[in-house]
């Protein structure tokens, strides 16, 4: 596939289309960045003008009022631990499903995957009562435990990538007397690094952005996560636009900056071989 070999009209359409899309995405973000430096009434009176007096008040007020420093710590902690745990746990399970024969394999696989089809909203309350019984209500640990149980997609995806590796390599290693674990560790894992990167990224996004479980599990604001903290700024009957814009700005830019900085790393990891089979 070579872009240069496309016909002229096709090239023009491609450029216009992609640029148009990029514009549609960038415009609101630009508007957000412009508005955050205005004061509350200015945002409503002059939505599209440049800020008159450049002020950081919205950002600092929102940061302090929402205690975003603590929120980011919580979100990062929970996401990192959970994603790491998922990769380890489901990696092992997926390998068993992909390579080993054992009684009940198909049934167990179906059971593992079925959880993907259930909306989290109906699990939230029973799960909360469960955590409450374990005296874990209103803790970050309860969230981590919940996220560690999000097996279905990871098992599905990782199993597929394990299946894509030709059996002969493992067979040879096993014949040489290597243990299953060693084979997994030294041969399979390096070859499926990109799949793990993909699963890790997807889960990191899911967990970071999750709103429902933090809402139901947590009550003390020092345990809140970033999306939950955002909700603080939208009252039922009163909303202060200045603070809200500041809060949205705070919720939006750090993940984006991190992504922009690491994008090269992430792209290469994801592009390395990708999903096989």
């Amino acid at each position: 596939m070579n872009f240069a070999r496309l016909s002229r009209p096709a090239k023009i359409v491609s450029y216009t289309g992609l640029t148009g899309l990029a514009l549609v995405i960038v415009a609101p973000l630009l508007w957000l960045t412009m508005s955050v430096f205005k004061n509350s009434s200015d945002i409503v009176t002059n939505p599209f003008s440049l800020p008159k007096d450049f002020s950081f008040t919205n950002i600092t007020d929102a940061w302090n009022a929402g205690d975003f420093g603590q929120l980011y710590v919580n979100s990062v902690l929970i996401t990192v631990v959970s994603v790491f745990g998922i990769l380890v746990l489901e990696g092992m399970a997926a390998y068993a499903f992909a390579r080993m024969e054992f009684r009940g394999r198909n049934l167990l696989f179906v059971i593992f995957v079925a959880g993907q089809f259930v909306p989290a909203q109906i699990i939230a309350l029973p799960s909360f009562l469960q955590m409450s019984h374990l005296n874990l209500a209103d803790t970050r640990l309860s969230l981590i435990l919940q996220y560690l149980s999000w097996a279905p997609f990871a098992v599905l995806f990782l199993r597929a990538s394990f299946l894509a590796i030709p059996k002969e390599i493992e067979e040879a290693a096993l014949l040489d007397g290597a243990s299953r674990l060693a084979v997994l560790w030294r041969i399979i894992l390096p070859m499926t690094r990109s799949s793990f990167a993909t699963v890790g990224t997807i889960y990191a996004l899911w967990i970071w952005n999750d709103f429902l479980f933090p809402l139901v599990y947590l009550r003390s604001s020092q345990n809140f996560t970033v999306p939950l903290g955002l909700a603080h700024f939208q009252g039922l009957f009163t909303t202060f636009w200045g603070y809200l814009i500041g809060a949205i700005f705070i919720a939006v830019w750090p993940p984006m900056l991190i992504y922009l900085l690491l994008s090269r790393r992430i792209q290469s990891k994801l592009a390395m071989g990708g999903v096989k089979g």
Partner: protein
Amino acid sequence: MNSPAPYPDRIPRALSRRSFLRAGAGAGLLAAGLPALQACSLSSNGGNAATALTFMNRWSDPNSQKAANAMFSGFTKATGIKITNQVQPSSGSTYQPAVRTAFSSNTPPALATDISGPEVYNLARAGVLMDLTSIYQGIKSKARAGAVAGSEVDGKIWGLSDGATIGNCVFYNPDYLAKYHVDAAAITTTSQWLAAMSHIKKAGGTPILIGAKDQWPGGHYLNDLVQRRLGSAAATQLYNRTVLPKQGDKIKWTDDQVIAAFRDYLAFKPLFQDGFLGEAAATTDGQFLAGKAGFYEMGSWLLSTMRQTPPSFTPGVMLFPTVEGGAGHGNEVTLGNDTIIVSAKANADAVRKFFDYFTRPDSLARWSGSMFVSPPYRFDASAVKVDSPVLGKLFGRINSFSANAGRDGAALFNDQAIDVNIYSRYIWQGSVGLMTGELSPERLCQKLEEATVRAQRKLG
């Protein structure tokens, strides 16, 4: 296609991977362990210790947080009892469920705010609340009408009000109105009001704003109009049929006056701003305060917004005008009542001390001025200090509304007095359906009546 990694004789990378795994596992366990340790230390009480109370609330916007924290520290200074502020996101659709969830857990908060009405009744019936009747006896001499509105079940008291807002206010912009030669002081009936607004519309102005996308603003109009047509007592009787057993059906949703009230709302349609169905209430708040329209129907909490976003003019406020042919008087008010409920597991002594402190006249004055609410207890209104003179005047006027309403001149907001299933679907969503034309007033009232009859049956 990547060529398969050769079976390694030496394992340089694997080692670092393994040690990484070990380090990672260690870090993970530590990270999981720390919160667990923290959880253990923060755990149970639920505020049972005599020296600490947990207080769940939705005073989450920055102003309210300041006011709440000030009140809490005042209490701690006076009694030595600490309060842990468990402030939650304030959105009603998440806060009430959060309260229910909290009270069903092993670690309920000692105190919590909640809206009066069915929410309190349900929690009381489930047995998770502390009976406050004896505590109420202790402060009864200080209490005014409204202190236990919507928190009394079977003769027992389950919550004490922390302040009511007035729901049926109409704010206006005198400068904007002057441009069209409209004098708000001369308006006392809805016909006069609608005529004045038509005049503004014909002249090219924006007579009135509404953020109908959020659904509850439309519910406000239904609330106000029903109250003006039926009067507070009858409206309350109607709403009670959805949450209390054995109410009979003297007043029905399908009565002429109720249908007429719903039809009255349609009269506002041509007067609202373009695209009002898609506008958020927060945006219209800001637009009104920026001087873009003549009138704005909103509860007295708009004063909090004004403190944050000072208006570009000096606003005036009046109560919702009367409806000709309606039984309601022009001085009757709608109350949005927040009540403080107590967990059955809480320390009764500490709780009593809290209410004693809260209802002290000086605490009430401070609370009133910082939260812009009218706490229904005796205190010196002149001691209320409001930072801005403009807001101070507005607040004084709003307080006079509740003073002049008379003992029977107040009704709870329809979204506090009516069962949540019914109001969220038929009042909130229904108000939108009226405006889009999908529902006629007759049809909506019929559905409301059917739902209410079902509710009565379920209540026995």
